[in-house]
Protein backbone atom coordinates (compact mmCIF):
# COMPACT_ATOMS: atom_id res chain seq x y z
CA UNK A 1 0.00 0.00 0.00
CA UNK A 2 1.36 3.43 -0.99
CA UNK A 3 1.47 6.61 1.08
CA UNK A 4 -1.16 8.25 -1.09
CA UNK A 5 -3.48 5.29 -0.44
CA UNK A 6 -3.15 5.77 3.32
CA UNK A 7 -3.81 9.49 2.96
CA UNK A 8 -6.92 8.91 0.85
CA UNK A 9 -8.24 6.27 3.27
CA UNK A 10 -7.67 8.57 6.27
CA UNK A 11 -9.46 11.46 4.56
CA UNK A 12 -12.40 9.21 3.60
CA UNK A 13 -12.71 8.07 7.22
CA UNK A 14 -12.62 11.67 8.49
CA UNK A 15 -15.27 12.62 5.92
CA UNK A 16 -17.54 9.74 6.96
CA UNK A 17 -17.17 10.43 10.68
CA UNK A 18 -17.95 14.12 10.22
CA UNK A 19 -20.93 13.26 8.00
CA UNK A 20 -22.17 10.81 10.66
CA UNK A 21 -21.77 13.49 13.34
CA UNK A 22 -23.74 16.02 11.29
CA UNK A 23 -26.47 13.43 10.60
CA UNK A 24 -26.66 12.47 14.29
CA UNK A 25 -27.15 16.13 15.22
CA UNK A 26 -30.06 16.36 12.76
CA UNK A 27 -28.22 18.56 10.26
CA UNK A 28 -29.46 16.59 7.24
CA UNK A 29 -33.17 16.62 8.10
CA UNK A 30 -35.25 15.22 10.95
CA UNK A 31 -34.11 11.91 12.49
CA UNK A 32 -36.46 8.86 12.43
CA UNK A 33 -38.18 8.15 15.77
CA UNK A 34 -36.39 5.77 18.15
CA UNK A 35 -39.61 4.22 19.49
CA UNK A 36 -41.21 1.15 17.89
CA UNK A 37 -43.63 2.35 15.21
CA UNK A 38 -47.34 1.57 15.30
CA UNK A 39 -47.26 -0.74 12.28
CA UNK A 40 -44.38 -2.66 13.88
CA UNK A 41 -46.35 -2.98 17.12
CA UNK A 42 -49.25 -4.46 15.14
CA UNK A 43 -46.97 -6.94 13.36
CA UNK A 44 -45.37 -8.02 16.63
CA UNK A 45 -48.79 -8.38 18.29
CA UNK A 46 -50.33 -10.41 15.49
CA UNK A 47 -47.51 -12.78 14.56
CA UNK A 48 -48.50 -15.32 17.23
CA UNK A 49 -51.57 -14.32 19.14
CA UNK A 50 -54.06 -16.89 20.44
CA UNK A 51 -56.59 -14.20 21.39
CA UNK A 52 -57.05 -12.75 17.90
CA UNK A 53 -57.48 -15.96 15.87
CA UNK A 54 -58.84 -14.13 12.80
CA UNK A 55 -55.83 -11.84 12.45
CA UNK A 56 -52.82 -13.87 13.58
CA UNK A 57 -50.40 -16.00 11.50
CA UNK A 58 -49.62 -18.60 14.22
CA UNK A 59 -45.91 -18.57 13.40
CA UNK A 60 -43.14 -17.49 15.78
CA UNK A 61 -41.04 -15.58 13.26
CA UNK A 62 -42.42 -12.17 12.49
CA UNK A 63 -40.21 -11.51 9.43
CA UNK A 64 -41.34 -14.69 7.65
CA UNK A 65 -44.93 -13.90 8.68
CA UNK A 66 -44.65 -10.49 7.05
CA UNK A 67 -42.91 -11.87 3.96
CA UNK A 68 -45.26 -14.79 3.26
CA UNK A 69 -48.52 -13.75 4.92
CA UNK A 70 -49.04 -10.04 5.63
CA UNK A 71 -47.46 -9.03 2.30
CA UNK A 72 -47.43 -12.45 0.65
CA UNK A 73 -48.52 -11.22 -2.77
CA UNK A 74 -45.47 -8.90 -2.96
CA UNK A 75 -43.20 -11.86 -2.30
CA UNK A 76 -44.98 -13.86 -5.01
CA UNK A 77 -44.16 -11.14 -7.54
CA UNK A 78 -40.57 -10.94 -6.28
CA UNK A 79 -40.33 -14.66 -6.97
CA UNK A 80 -41.79 -13.97 -10.41
CA UNK A 81 -39.01 -11.44 -11.08
CA UNK A 82 -36.42 -14.03 -10.11
CA UNK A 83 -38.18 -16.53 -12.38
CA UNK A 84 -38.01 -14.08 -15.29
CA UNK A 85 -34.31 -13.44 -14.66
CA UNK A 86 -33.54 -17.16 -14.84
CA UNK A 87 -35.63 -17.46 -18.01
CA UNK A 88 -33.62 -14.59 -19.52
CA UNK A 89 -30.31 -16.28 -18.74
CA UNK A 90 -31.55 -19.54 -20.28
CA UNK A 91 -32.66 -17.60 -23.37
CA UNK A 92 -29.20 -15.98 -23.65
CA UNK A 93 -27.55 -19.39 -23.62
CA UNK A 94 -30.02 -21.01 -26.03
CA UNK A 95 -28.46 -23.66 -28.23
CA UNK A 96 -25.39 -24.03 -25.97
CA UNK A 97 -25.05 -27.61 -24.80
CA UNK A 98 -23.31 -28.54 -21.56
CA UNK A 99 -20.71 -31.10 -22.62
CA UNK A 100 -19.74 -34.16 -20.68
CA UNK A 101 -16.40 -35.64 -19.60
CA UNK A 102 -15.94 -38.81 -17.61
CA UNK A 103 -12.44 -38.55 -16.15
CA UNK A 104 -12.37 -35.52 -13.90
CA UNK A 105 -10.05 -36.85 -11.18
CA UNK A 106 -7.12 -34.80 -12.47
CA UNK A 107 -9.14 -31.60 -12.92
CA UNK A 108 -9.90 -28.99 -10.31
CA UNK A 109 -7.95 -27.91 -7.26
CA UNK A 110 -5.69 -29.87 -4.90
CA UNK A 111 -6.79 -33.03 -2.99
CA UNK A 112 -6.86 -31.02 0.27
CA UNK A 113 -9.39 -28.59 -1.14
CA UNK A 114 -11.39 -31.47 -2.59
CA UNK A 115 -11.53 -33.35 0.73
CA UNK A 116 -12.64 -30.26 2.63
CA UNK A 117 -15.29 -29.60 0.00
CA UNK A 118 -16.57 -33.18 0.19
CA UNK A 119 -17.31 -32.61 3.89
CA UNK A 120 -19.03 -29.29 3.25
CA UNK A 121 -21.03 -30.83 0.38
CA UNK A 122 -23.04 -32.55 3.12
CA UNK A 123 -22.90 -29.87 5.80
CA UNK A 124 -24.04 -26.87 3.77
CA UNK A 125 -27.26 -28.47 2.41
CA UNK A 126 -28.06 -29.58 5.97
CA UNK A 127 -27.78 -26.00 7.21
CA UNK A 128 -29.86 -24.85 4.24
CA UNK A 129 -32.58 -27.41 4.92
CA UNK A 130 -32.73 -26.43 8.59
CA UNK A 131 -32.95 -22.73 7.67
CA UNK A 132 -35.78 -23.50 5.24
CA UNK A 133 -37.77 -25.88 7.44
CA UNK A 134 -37.39 -23.71 10.58
CA UNK A 135 -38.08 -20.53 8.64
CA UNK A 136 -41.36 -19.98 10.51
CA UNK A 137 -39.68 -20.45 13.93
CA UNK A 138 -36.21 -18.90 13.69
CA UNK A 139 -34.63 -16.28 11.39
CA UNK A 140 -34.38 -17.56 7.85
CA UNK A 141 -36.68 -18.78 5.14
CA UNK A 142 -36.87 -20.05 1.61
CA UNK A 143 -34.70 -17.50 -0.18
CA UNK A 144 -32.01 -17.56 2.50
CA UNK A 145 -31.89 -21.36 2.46
CA UNK A 146 -31.84 -21.45 -1.34
CA UNK A 147 -28.88 -19.10 -1.57
CA UNK A 148 -27.04 -21.03 1.15
CA UNK A 149 -27.59 -24.27 -0.79
CA UNK A 150 -26.29 -22.66 -3.99
CA UNK A 151 -22.91 -22.11 -2.32
CA UNK A 152 -22.48 -25.90 -2.62
CA UNK A 153 -23.05 -25.72 -6.37
CA UNK A 154 -20.51 -22.92 -6.76
CA UNK A 155 -17.99 -24.76 -4.58
CA UNK A 156 -18.34 -27.99 -6.54
CA UNK A 157 -17.97 -26.21 -9.89
CA UNK A 158 -14.87 -24.30 -8.77
CA UNK A 159 -13.17 -27.00 -6.65
CA UNK A 160 -13.91 -30.15 -8.72
CA UNK A 161 -14.72 -29.02 -12.23
CA UNK A 162 -17.69 -27.93 -14.29
CA UNK A 163 -18.29 -31.55 -15.29
CA UNK A 164 -18.80 -32.61 -11.64
CA UNK A 165 -22.52 -31.80 -11.44
CA UNK A 166 -23.58 -33.27 -14.83
CA UNK A 167 -21.64 -36.48 -14.03
CA UNK A 168 -23.51 -36.81 -10.76
CA UNK A 169 -26.85 -36.40 -12.48
CA UNK A 170 -27.62 -32.71 -12.01
CA UNK A 171 -28.05 -31.49 -15.57
CA UNK A 172 -29.54 -28.16 -16.62
CA UNK A 173 -32.85 -29.71 -17.63
CA UNK A 174 -33.17 -31.56 -14.34
CA UNK A 175 -32.49 -28.32 -12.42
CA UNK A 176 -35.12 -26.63 -14.59
CA UNK A 177 -37.59 -29.38 -13.71
CA UNK A 178 -36.98 -29.03 -9.96
CA UNK A 179 -37.21 -25.26 -10.16
CA UNK A 180 -40.54 -25.57 -11.97
CA UNK A 181 -41.75 -27.98 -9.28
CA UNK A 182 -40.82 -25.38 -6.66
CA UNK A 183 -42.66 -22.61 -8.47
CA UNK A 184 -45.66 -24.84 -9.04
CA UNK A 185 -45.66 -25.63 -5.32
CA UNK A 186 -45.72 -21.91 -4.48
CA UNK A 187 -48.59 -21.37 -6.93
CA UNK A 188 -50.60 -24.30 -5.60
CA UNK A 189 -50.02 -23.30 -1.96
CA UNK A 190 -51.22 -19.77 -2.64
CA UNK A 191 -54.55 -20.97 -4.07
CA UNK A 192 -54.91 -24.27 -2.17
CA UNK A 193 -57.51 -22.99 0.29
CA UNK A 194 -59.39 -21.29 -2.54
CA UNK A 195 -59.64 -24.59 -4.45
CA UNK A 196 -60.85 -26.45 -1.35
CA UNK A 197 -63.32 -23.66 -0.63
CA UNK A 198 -64.78 -23.93 -4.14
CA UNK A 199 -65.34 -27.65 -3.56
CA UNK A 200 -66.86 -27.10 -0.12
CA UNK A 201 -68.87 -24.06 -1.20
CA UNK A 202 -67.47 -21.62 1.37
CA UNK A 203 -65.65 -18.28 1.12
CA UNK A 204 -61.83 -18.00 0.85
CA UNK A 205 -59.10 -15.60 -0.29
CA UNK A 206 -55.98 -15.93 -2.45
CA UNK A 207 -52.90 -16.27 -0.20
CA UNK A 208 -55.07 -17.11 2.78
CA UNK A 209 -53.17 -18.74 5.62
CA UNK A 210 -55.35 -18.76 8.73
CA UNK A 211 -59.14 -18.52 8.92
CA UNK A 212 -60.65 -15.05 8.56
CA UNK A 213 -64.03 -13.91 9.84
CA UNK A 214 -65.96 -14.76 6.65
CA UNK A 215 -63.52 -17.46 5.41
CA UNK A 216 -63.44 -20.43 7.79
CA UNK A 217 -60.70 -22.55 6.17
CA UNK A 218 -57.10 -22.45 7.38
CA UNK A 219 -53.80 -24.31 6.95
CA UNK A 220 -52.80 -26.53 9.91
CA UNK A 221 -50.92 -24.36 12.36
CA UNK A 222 -50.28 -26.78 15.21
CA UNK A 223 -49.64 -30.49 14.69
CA UNK A 224 -48.73 -32.58 17.76
CA UNK A 225 -47.57 -29.49 19.68
CA UNK A 226 -45.26 -28.53 16.82
CA UNK A 227 -45.90 -25.08 15.39
CA UNK A 228 -46.17 -25.29 11.59
CA UNK A 229 -47.10 -21.71 10.84
CA UNK A 230 -49.76 -22.77 8.37
CA UNK A 231 -48.79 -22.05 4.78
CA UNK A 232 -45.41 -20.53 5.73
CA UNK A 233 -43.78 -23.97 5.99
CA UNK A 234 -44.91 -24.88 2.46
CA UNK A 235 -43.95 -21.51 1.00
CA UNK A 236 -40.48 -21.71 2.58
CA UNK A 237 -39.94 -25.26 1.36
CA UNK A 238 -41.01 -24.56 -2.24
CA UNK A 239 -39.16 -21.23 -2.38
CA UNK A 240 -36.05 -23.07 -1.16
CA UNK A 241 -36.34 -25.56 -4.04
CA UNK A 242 -37.09 -22.86 -6.63
CA UNK A 243 -34.26 -20.52 -5.58
CA UNK A 244 -31.63 -23.24 -5.13
CA UNK A 245 -32.25 -24.82 -8.53
CA UNK A 246 -32.72 -21.44 -10.22
CA UNK A 247 -29.24 -20.38 -9.10
CA UNK A 248 -27.94 -23.82 -10.08
CA UNK A 249 -29.09 -23.25 -13.67
CA UNK A 250 -27.33 -19.87 -13.79
CA UNK A 251 -24.05 -21.25 -12.49
CA UNK A 252 -24.17 -24.30 -14.77
CA UNK A 253 -24.61 -21.93 -17.73
CA UNK A 254 -21.94 -19.47 -16.54
CA UNK A 255 -19.38 -22.25 -16.19
CA UNK A 256 -19.48 -23.13 -19.90
CA UNK A 257 -16.31 -21.95 -21.65
CA UNK A 258 -16.55 -18.64 -23.47
CA UNK A 259 -15.30 -19.94 -26.84
CA UNK A 260 -18.14 -22.44 -27.03
CA UNK A 261 -20.76 -19.85 -26.11
CA UNK A 262 -19.39 -17.43 -28.70
CA UNK A 263 -19.36 -20.11 -31.35
CA UNK A 264 -23.05 -20.78 -30.81
CA UNK A 265 -24.36 -17.26 -30.12
CA UNK A 266 -22.32 -15.29 -32.69
CA UNK A 267 -21.80 -17.80 -35.50
CA UNK A 268 -25.25 -19.29 -34.99
Amino acid sequence: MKKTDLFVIASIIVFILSLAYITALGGLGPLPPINVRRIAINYLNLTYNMFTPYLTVFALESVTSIVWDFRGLDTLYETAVFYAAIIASIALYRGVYIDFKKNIEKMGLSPIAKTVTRISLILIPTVAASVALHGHLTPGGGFQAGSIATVVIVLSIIIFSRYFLPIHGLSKNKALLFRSIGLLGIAVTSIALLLIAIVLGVNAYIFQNQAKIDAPLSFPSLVDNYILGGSLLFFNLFEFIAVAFGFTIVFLLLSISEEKVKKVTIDG
Partner: protein
Amino acid sequence: MLEIFTLSLLTLFAITSVVAAYLAIRERDLVKAVVYSAIQSAMYALIYYVLMAPDIVLVYIPVSVGLIPAVLLFVIKKTERYEGD
Protein backbone atom coordinates in the same frame (compact mmCIF):
# COMPACT_ATOMS: atom_id res chain seq x y z
CA MET B 1 -22.34 0.91 28.28
CA LEU B 2 -23.88 -1.69 25.96
CA GLU B 3 -25.02 1.05 23.60
CA ILE B 4 -21.52 2.53 23.39
CA PHE B 5 -20.09 -0.94 22.74
CA THR B 6 -22.63 -1.57 19.95
CA LEU B 7 -22.01 1.80 18.38
CA SER B 8 -18.22 1.41 18.47
CA LEU B 9 -18.54 -2.05 16.88
CA LEU B 10 -20.72 -0.52 14.17
CA THR B 11 -18.17 2.25 13.58
CA LEU B 12 -15.35 -0.28 13.34
CA PHE B 13 -17.21 -2.44 10.80
CA ALA B 14 -18.35 0.57 8.79
CA ILE B 15 -14.85 2.05 8.56
CA THR B 16 -13.33 -1.32 7.63
CA SER B 17 -15.93 -1.68 4.88
CA VAL B 18 -15.07 1.77 3.51
CA VAL B 19 -11.36 0.90 3.46
CA ALA B 20 -12.12 -2.39 1.68
CA ALA B 21 -14.34 -0.59 -0.85
CA TYR B 22 -11.57 1.94 -1.58
CA LEU B 23 -9.00 -0.83 -2.04
CA ALA B 24 -11.40 -2.73 -4.31
CA ILE B 25 -11.74 0.33 -6.54
CA ARG B 26 -7.98 1.03 -6.56
CA GLU B 27 -6.86 -2.54 -7.22
CA ARG B 28 -5.70 -3.32 -10.79
CA ASP B 29 -5.81 -7.10 -10.29
CA LEU B 30 -9.53 -7.80 -10.59
CA VAL B 31 -9.38 -11.08 -8.65
CA LYS B 32 -7.91 -9.23 -5.68
CA ALA B 33 -10.56 -6.55 -6.12
CA VAL B 34 -13.25 -9.23 -5.84
CA VAL B 35 -11.69 -10.41 -2.56
CA TYR B 36 -11.68 -6.84 -1.21
CA SER B 37 -15.30 -6.46 -2.22
CA ALA B 38 -16.12 -9.71 -0.40
CA ILE B 39 -14.43 -8.31 2.72
CA GLN B 40 -16.58 -5.18 2.40
CA SER B 41 -19.71 -7.34 2.10
CA ALA B 42 -18.70 -9.40 5.14
CA MET B 43 -18.44 -6.16 7.11
CA TYR B 44 -21.93 -5.19 5.92
CA ALA B 45 -23.20 -8.59 7.08
CA LEU B 46 -21.70 -7.96 10.52
CA ILE B 47 -23.36 -4.52 10.58
CA TYR B 48 -26.73 -6.16 9.82
CA TYR B 49 -26.10 -8.65 12.63
CA VAL B 50 -25.28 -5.91 15.14
CA LEU B 51 -28.42 -4.03 14.03
CA MET B 52 -30.45 -7.17 14.89
CA ALA B 53 -31.50 -8.19 11.36
CA PRO B 54 -30.56 -11.91 11.36
CA ASP B 55 -32.82 -12.66 8.37
CA ILE B 56 -30.84 -10.27 6.21
CA VAL B 57 -27.54 -11.68 7.53
CA LEU B 58 -28.59 -15.20 6.51
CA VAL B 59 -29.23 -14.12 2.94
CA TYR B 60 -26.45 -11.53 2.75
CA ILE B 61 -23.56 -13.84 3.66
CA PRO B 62 -24.15 -16.52 0.97
CA VAL B 63 -25.13 -14.01 -1.70
CA SER B 64 -22.47 -11.36 -1.15
CA VAL B 65 -19.54 -13.47 0.04
CA GLY B 66 -20.32 -16.64 -1.92
CA LEU B 67 -22.39 -16.06 -5.05
CA ILE B 68 -21.50 -12.55 -6.22
CA PRO B 69 -17.70 -13.15 -6.02
CA ALA B 70 -18.29 -16.44 -7.86
CA VAL B 71 -20.24 -14.69 -10.63
CA LEU B 72 -17.56 -11.98 -10.83
CA LEU B 73 -14.79 -14.59 -11.01
CA PHE B 74 -16.61 -16.36 -13.85
CA VAL B 75 -16.96 -13.03 -15.65
CA ILE B 76 -13.28 -12.11 -15.06
CA LYS B 77 -12.29 -15.47 -16.49
CA LYS B 78 -14.21 -14.56 -19.63
CA THR B 79 -12.41 -11.18 -19.99
CA GLU B 80 -9.02 -10.03 -18.67
CA ARG B 81 -7.61 -10.30 -15.18
CA TYR B 82 -5.66 -7.01 -15.12
CA GLU B 83 -7.21 -3.62 -15.64
CA GLY B 84 -5.41 -1.50 -18.26
CA ASP B 85 -4.53 2.20 -18.02
